[in-house]
Structure formats: C-alpha cells, structure tokens
C-alpha cells in the first residue's frame, strides 16, 4: 500500500472510530475513543520506544508502531538471540539491541518501553521501567498474579507515568459501534454474554533438539509463566464483557481440566466458567484447544436482540410471524374464504433463529496501530488516555479470579483490595 492510500485508509478508520464513539452514553463508556480519534499526531519528534520481547507478538507490534505518525522503535531487547535477530530485521540498522531490559533502560535514549514478553515477567519489567523514569505499554494480560497487576498500577501512579495495556478491542470500530448500539437500547438490556474462544491447536511450539528451552519457548503451557487460556485468550473477552456489562463481575465459578492435550502441560486445555454481574446478569465463558467449530465470539444478548462483534453482526429478536395468517390475508384479498390452520407451530422444535442479521460495518481495522498513536500522545502529554487502564486492570483481575475459581473448585468473589484508578 502506498503512503497516500494508507493515509486515506487511516483517516477513514479514525472517522469510523469517531462516528462510533459519538453516541449517547459513549463518552462515559469509552472515554478513550474520543481521545483516540481527536489525537491528531503531527510530524513532530516521534516518541522513542524500546521494545522488550521480539517474539511473535513483539514483531507484530514493531510493524504497527512503524505505521504510526508519532512513535518510533528506538531500541529492541530479547534474551533469546534467534528472536532478537528476527527483531533486528524489522528496524533500521544501528537500532540498539539488548539481551537484558535493564541494560536497555540504563542506556537511555527511550521515552517508553513496549513489553511483549511472557506473562510472568511483565510485572518486574514494568516496575524496572517506571523506576528508570520511562512510561510503559505492556501486552495483555497484565501479570501472573493479581498482586502483581496491582503493583504495576500502583507504581505507575506513584511515579506519575503512563501505563497502557494492549487490549486492542477497545480501539476496534466494530466493538465501539456495537457498544453505541447497545447504549442506544437497540438490543434491550443486556442480561447475558456467552463468550467462547475455541481453537483446534496444541499451542505447543517446536523446541530446538537437545536444548533446555522447553519452558522458555512453551511458556504458555506452564503454570509458573501463564494462566493458560484465561490470560492468553479469555482476558480479551472478559474485557469486552466487563465493558458491555458496565462493571466487573461480582463472583465467578468455574471448572478447568487437561482433557485432550495430555502432553505434560500444566495449564488447562479446556475451561468453563460463569461470571456473575450485578442484577443477576451473567457471562458464560468456555475455551478449549481441540475443536474450532465455534471459534472466537462474544454473543451479547439483550431482550430485543443480539450482537456478535467478532462476526460484526446485530440480530433483532423477532418471534416468527404466523404464515397461516399471512395466507389468510392473501385469501381475503382474492375473495377466498377457507379455514385458517392455527396452532401448528406450537409443536415445532425451538431451534436457533438463523436470520442473517445486519452488518455492524467496517471490515478493515488498524486498532493495534491506533493504540500506539494514543500511547504516543499520552507519553507526550504525560497524561494517560482516560479509562483504558481501569478496563485492562479489571480484565486481568477477572481472568485471574477465574483461574482461582477453577483451581479451588469454589466460587471466588471480586477482590476488595484493588488499587483505585
């Protein structure tokens, strides 16, 4: 794509975000969206970012940062040489590269770090970065424990630094538009969200023969470094759930198991949880790794309709009409009078409604890029985009309390000792 085309795409994308975030109630529900759309980064000096972790996600982030108009990668860091090499290939020659994040922080020359390392090192790297006086953009989920998530928030507040977490759905125009339509009452009060992320993959990565890198490369599969499906997948959807239900859950029950991939992993390959929200509302969550039929979706269900944002569709609840009565109307028009068959549908099975629904619009997203433009503006002004961190903090806590409920086999209440944001 040439620059001019890209700029057009970008502008229409921002337009979509603006349009979606302009609805009634949206300023309170997604305060960062107006900030994102109005942030018009000029061609001033770019915010200098040091990327820690140039694995799969880190490299995707580097590509997105390159698309922004206000950020640039000024240093990279990875403690695994093969991945650092891959990271180098994406940045201008001469960009400093480090094997240790503290060395990168000591070297200076960056305004902020971008953390895309395994979950269990997020907290330490975040705290070190704040202590070194730079701002932090960190991938979701925030940290391996609720205490570490809280420590990250607290340190950001104490050091008056920006902490932004990578929950890109908050910048996705389809999600923003979905929320706008919920706020407008189009699907009635939302009483249940059924969310799932189903994949058919082992999640296992090949490890160089003879190496002792199993736990490093397959960090997702081990308890020390990951809460598995909860922090890797569910956290995105729990963020959406809390967002659409306007508050975090009050309680969760759940059950997890290693059911299919009995390959020495420690994290569940199948989870099922019910999150309670105020007023009896629920989020019913399942995730598994050996069947992809139902994929990734949040079915946001109200009394008047349903929204499926991943599919980008909105459905109205319309009990089916009675065909016999339509027929009667036609008969009368034609001057015919004959018995109207009635009561028949009473005996039909209640199958899912398969109406096509209506599109929520907009297929091309650049939400990951937009996250960084917003972060860049926040770093420049020293003021975080409103609302983002609270969403992310609550999403991480929600996913970790789910893990706790499954491990303990007991209901777990929303923790009372969180940091205020």
């Amino acid at each position, binding site marked *: 794509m040439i620059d001019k085309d890209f700029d057009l795409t970008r502008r229409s994308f921002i337009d979509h975000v603006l349009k979606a975030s302009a609805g009634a109630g949206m300023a309170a529900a997604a305060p960062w969206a107006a900030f994102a759309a109005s942030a018009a980064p000029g061609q001033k000096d770019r915010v200098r970012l040091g990327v820690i972790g140039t694995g799969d996600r880190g490299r995707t982030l580097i590509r997105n940062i390159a698309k922004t108009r206000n950020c640039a990668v000024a240093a990279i860091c990875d403690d695994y040489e093969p991945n650092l090499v891959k990271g180098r290939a994406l940045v201008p020659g001469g960009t400093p590269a480090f094997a240790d994040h503290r060395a990168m922080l000591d070297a200076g020359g960056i305004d902020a770090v971008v953390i895309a390392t395994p979950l269990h090192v997020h907290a330490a790297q975040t705290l070190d970065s704040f202590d070194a006086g730079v701002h932090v953009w960190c991938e979701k989920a925030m940290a391996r424990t609720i205490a570490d998530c809280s420590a990250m928030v607290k340190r950001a507040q104490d050091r008056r630094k920006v902490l932004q977490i990578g929950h890109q759905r908050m910048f996705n125009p389809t999600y923003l538009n979905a929320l706008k339509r919920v706020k407008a009452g189009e699907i009635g*009060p939302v009483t249940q969200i059924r969310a799932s992320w189903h994949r058919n993959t082992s999640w296992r990565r090949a490890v160089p023969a003879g190496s002792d890198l199993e736990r490093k490369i397959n960090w997702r599969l081990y308890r020390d470094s990951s809460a598995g499906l909860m922090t890797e997948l569910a956290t995105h959807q729990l963020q959406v759930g809390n967002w659409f239900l306007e508050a975090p859950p009050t309680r969760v029950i759940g059950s997890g198991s290693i059911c299919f991939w009995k390959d020495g992993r420690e994290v569940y390959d199948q989870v099922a949880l019910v999150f309670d929200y105020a007023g009896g509302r629920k989020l019913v969550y399942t995730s598994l790794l050996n069947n992809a039929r139902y994929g990734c979706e949040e079915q946001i269900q109200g*009394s008047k309709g349903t929204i499926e944002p991943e599919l980008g569709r909105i459905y109205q609840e*319309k*009990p*089916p*009409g*009675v065909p*016999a*009565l339509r027929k*009667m*109307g036609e008969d*009368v028009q034609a*001057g*015919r*009078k*004959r*018995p*109207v*068959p*009635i*009561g*028949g*549908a*009473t*005996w*039909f*099975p*209640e199958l899912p409604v398969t109406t096509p629904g209506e599109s929520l619009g907009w297929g091309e997203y650049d939400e990951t890029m937009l996250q960084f433009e917003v972060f860049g503006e926040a770093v420049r002004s020293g003021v975080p985009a409103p609302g983002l961190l609270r969403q992310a903090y609550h999403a991480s806590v929600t996913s970790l309390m789910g893990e706790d409920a499954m491990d303990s086999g007991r209901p777990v209440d929303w923790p009372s000792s969180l940091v205020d944001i």
Partner: protein
Amino acid sequence: MGTRIELHLFGTAEDGSMIEARRAIEAVDDALTIHRPSPTTALNDSLAAGSPAAIDDPLLFDALVEIDHAYQAMEGLFDPAADVSTGGAGWNMVLFDREDARIRALRPLALDFGGFGKGFALDRACDVLRRADRVSALLSAGESSIAVVGEHPLGGRWPFAIPHPLQPDRILLELELEDSALSISSTVGEGTYAPDRAPMIRPGDGTIVTGRRTAVACARSGARAEMMSTALLVADGDQAKRFLDGEPARRFLFDFTGETGISVPPAETVIR
C-alpha cells in the same frame, strides 16, 4: 410478553384505531411484564416480603379481578403463582380485597401472568377495535391464542382448523368464530416449542401433567379462554367432565395417551 402479537385489520376502521389497539397491547405488557420493572414486579416484591400492597395500576387491578374470579370458577386449576409448581404457595395464599384494591400474601410468592397476559392483551385490543365502526379484525398472540372482532371480511364467521398435533396432515378440529377468542394448550411435543406452557403443572399437587393432551377453549374473552384451556389441560377426569359438560361447543379436550378421547368433537362446531 415474549410473544409476537399480530393484528390483521380489514374493513373501514376509523383512522388510528390500529395504533390505539397496539398501544392497548403495549399498556398491558407494561403493566403485567415480569421481565423489566413494572407494576407487577413491584407487587411481586411486596408479595415476596409478605407485606400488604395497594394496587394503583388499573390494568393490574383488572387482571387480578379476572384471575380471582377464574380461580374460583375453575376450581383452582388456573393459578398465576409462579412457583406453585415446585410446591410454592399458590393463589389460595393470597388475600385480595377488591373493594380497597389491596392485596397480601400469607406466604411469600410471586405472580407470573404468562398466557393469561396474552389473552388479556388481546381483549384490550379487541375492545378498542369494537369501538371502531364496522371493523373486522383477527388478532393472534403466537399460534395458540386467537381473537376475532366482527365478521369475517367476506361475511359470516371466521373458519379455523386446528391440525392434529401428532399427524399434521390431519385436522383435529374445525370451528368458526365470531367476535370471540380461542386458546389452544397442549402437552404434546413436550420439550419442544411451548415456551410458557411446558411442562404443564397441576396446581393442586404440583405434579407434571404427563398425559399427551391438547385442550381448546373458546370464550368471548381471550383471558378466559386462556385460563380455561390451561385448566382443561391439567384437570383430572371428573373436573374435565364438569368443564366440558357445560360447554360442549366451546371447550374440547383431546387425550392422545390412550385409545379413547375424553371429548369426541363434532367435525364442525359453531361458536357464538
């Protein structure tokens, strides 16, 4: 109400009566729904707490009068209490003072107007349309509740055919209506589509009606037709006989469990 209401209007109704009829239905829904805050949910809060409540909403009051009357007339077989099925308290635990429009429950309970609400809504809409001149209309709430106003648009009565629940090609019952309502209740196809009726519960002892039955009731009032078809479905043999004997052309009960039906309908029945 959770049910789609259809309104088919023919003839020369005065402008606006269609909209007025729709408003009447919405007003009933607003008063009787338990799916969002309403006069009924407020009443249920009081009934659950065992505290007396004044009934200020005129639609809710009228509905309670209808129900109280029907409860007596139908030997307690129609009961609007939500948990009567699971051994909870029923309408017999309710003290309803019509004169003072006050109500109180002796044991905690909640009301759920369900199918009654559909019939009651149709009645209100029919009243509106009857006030309009020379109108001819058919109203339905789902497929199980029908009401007609006036004559068929082509003259005479409105013919209906109720298919056999087990053999859809066969007609179970044909009947003709004029200015009246019809309600069908059925246990056949249990576990399939019958959102507010399956499983059917016998109010007296809270047992599930396991027989394969279809009940049909006609009445001037849709609410009464609803309550009667429900009562017929759960009635025991003697009770059913008493209800059917009085009104052979307006009430029907088909039992598909055994060989013989309790009521063998005439092929065509005229309802006035």
